[in-house]
């Protein structure tokens, strides 16, 4: 390409908005600017900063940095190309239009890169972050979050306060996790509701809905459910889930630049807990650890299998209730639990049963009756 040395443009002295037509000459040391009135200036390349002309349709604007910045405007962008050919070294501080083709490719790569980064962050980055951060969340925070969610999911007046049942549950909890043996102080709340579900909240609270309680044939069945839920708490699955959810929210709002979104995360904590569904990995971990917990408490782990079996039979061909739908496939799950029990080599072990002065059906009734009226009322 032929290098053009002489150019025309406009000069602004930075003191007024008066635009003066000037002639510009490329020199080795800098730009020689001569106005129609006869004045001549030399701008050395080092003192010039480019402020415009980075995109196809912009005029080139050069500013001479100083107390009062002076401005030079050149409408023809080929000026930049000539400058780069004429003084390649000094011109490095200016935009080079020759690299514009590269820009398109860069954008393309950036788009692909962006999608990849987003995908990896979402699939691996955030869960890894949650695993790393969850163990360091202070117990007080977990309890706080758990309490806020408890107030919403199990309002005071919906809780079943039957003394015999409360006592029976406390015994199960003490058996599974003897006082002083755990970091968490587990508390179980029975809520009058036909929902077939149990929820583990961060910090130690567990909600059991009476719909699930009704289906437990013996206290060991409930112990199996509680052992499972206690493992969710102990392994901080809920806390991890909250971190994952809020990180995703934060990431999305950082990317979109909408910071208000991230401010709502406090409120989202409760929502996350209300619609909590653990990943398959968390469920399997809770099952495996739950079995160990039952064996350690000298309770027959087979009840866990029986409980899931009842659920499986009962729900064959039916719409899958919430409790199971968020959990791994029931058939696979049962065989997994079976093999875990076999691996623990507890074949000839004698388990003690949980026994109370009343029989289990009577104890359960303490909470089921109000639930029935509640149900007909709604």
């Amino acid at each position: 390409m032929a290098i053009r040395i002489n150019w025309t443009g406009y000069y602004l002295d930075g003191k007024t908005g008066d635009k003066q037509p000037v002639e510009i000459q490329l020199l080795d040391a800098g730009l020689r600017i001569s106005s129609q009135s006869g004045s001549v200036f030399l701008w050395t390349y080092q003192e010039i900063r480019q402020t415009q002309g980075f995109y196809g349709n912009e005029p080139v604007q050069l500013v001479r940095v100083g107390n009062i910045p002076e401005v030079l405007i050149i409408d023809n962008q080929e000026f930049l190309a000539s400058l780069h050919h004429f003084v390649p070294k000094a011109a490095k501080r200016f935009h080079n239009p020759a690299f514009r083709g590269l820009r398109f490719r860069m954008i393309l790569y950036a788009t692909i890169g962006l999608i990849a980064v987003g995908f990896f962050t979402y699939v691996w980055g955030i869960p890894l972050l949650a695993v790393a951060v969850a163990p360091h969340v202070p117990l007080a925070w977990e309890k706080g979050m758990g309490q806020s969610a408890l107030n919403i999911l199990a309002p005071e007046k919906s809780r079943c306060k039957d003394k015999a049942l409360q006592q029976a549950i406390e015994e199960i909890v003490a058996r599974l996790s003897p006082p002083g043996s755990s970091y968490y102080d587990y508390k179980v709340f029975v809520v009058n509701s036909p929902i077939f579900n149990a929820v583990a909240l961060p910090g130690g609270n567990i909600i059991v809905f009476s719909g699930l309680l009704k289906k437990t044939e013996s206290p060991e069945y409930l112990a199996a459910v509680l052992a499972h839920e206690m493992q969710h708490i102990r392994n901080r699955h809920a806390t991890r889930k909250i971190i994952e959810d809020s990180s995703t929210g934060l990431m999305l709002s950082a990317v979109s630049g909408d910071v208000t979104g991230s401010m709502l995360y406090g409120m989202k904590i409760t929502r996350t807990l209300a619609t909590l569904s653990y990943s398959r990995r968390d469920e399997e971990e809770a099952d495996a650890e739950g079995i160990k917990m039952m064996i350690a408490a000298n309770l027959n782990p087979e009840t866990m299998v029986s409980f899931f079996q009842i659920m499986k039979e009962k729900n064959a061909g039916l719409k899958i209730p919430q409790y199971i739908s968020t959990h791994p496939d029931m058939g696979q799950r049962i065989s997994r639990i079976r093999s875990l029990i076999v691996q623990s080599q507890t074949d000839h072990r004698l388990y003690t049963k949980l026994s109370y002065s009343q029989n289990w059906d009577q104890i359960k009734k303490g909470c089921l009756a109000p639930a029935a009226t509640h149900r007909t009322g709604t």
Partner: protein
Amino acid sequence: MDDLQVQNVPTISRLEKKTYRFSFQGNGGTLFGIQIVNLLLIIVTLGIYYFWAKTRVRSYTWSQVDFCGDRLAYHGMGKEILIGWIKAVALFGIPFYILKNVPILTGAPLSVIITGSLASSLLIMFFIPVATVGARRYRLSRTSLRGIRFSFRGKWQEFAKIFFGSLPWMILTFGFYFPYFEMRCQDFLIEKGYFGNQKFSFYGEGKDLIKSFIIAALLAFPTFMLSLVWYFYTKKKYVWNHTSFSTASFKSTITFGGFIGLYLVNGLILILTLGLGAPWVKVRTMRYYLENLTLEGQVNFSKIVQEAQDSSAFGEEVGDFFALDFDLG
């Protein structure tokens, strides 16, 4: 090259009334490219690049605003907004988060959660004037045309007076004071604006808009809020048509049909492209407003003298932190 008409540049001595035109030269494709690269850099830098990204987008959009062949220039720097952001977080963001979230995290009773939430909202209200003025000061001081900087010389205390002084009237009139409030704000925001040593003027009054406002408010329900869109349009046009600079007046020729069409198509673009069309939407909007705007009268550029004003990016980021939109004009 585009068809910039250099001969349109106003010369110094003639004093006859002239029509100065605006246009927007940007295109959606370029803006999309800028934003995609920005997005990637924001992610790789874990968000830190956000401030530089914002500056790049602004620098591009400003440079595409053409006034009689001259382009606006943006001189803001990412570092400045980062510092502004840090200040905003320390003075305002942290207290806000504490008030809003600590009651939730500690499982406080509902009454404490609500009180904290209310206190945090009050904090926002207090900072609206601070942020509005700060953002305007920053933005205008970093904008130039023909090498001459703009500036905003209002103080946040003055704006807070208007803001909170209007509150009792708003309550007493059940919100019908709103157009008066808006025009008082505009009056402050425009009258304190300067280009070099010459100021902008605003001579609009709330009483001119009250009729439109009442009609729009009454018809809001039966017209499915369309009347409010009409009011928004009316107000926008009114503000431009009552703003002047030096001895020249702005004139906006936007029409209600054009306005509705613009936003309908914008909405469609956003929906059909799942939001990826945002840069084109921005370009369309800028183009519509600027190409329907003229300045009529006489502007003597040789008499416009540079007068630099200092300003930090504090308000800019306070506003940004709460995602409040301050582009009232």
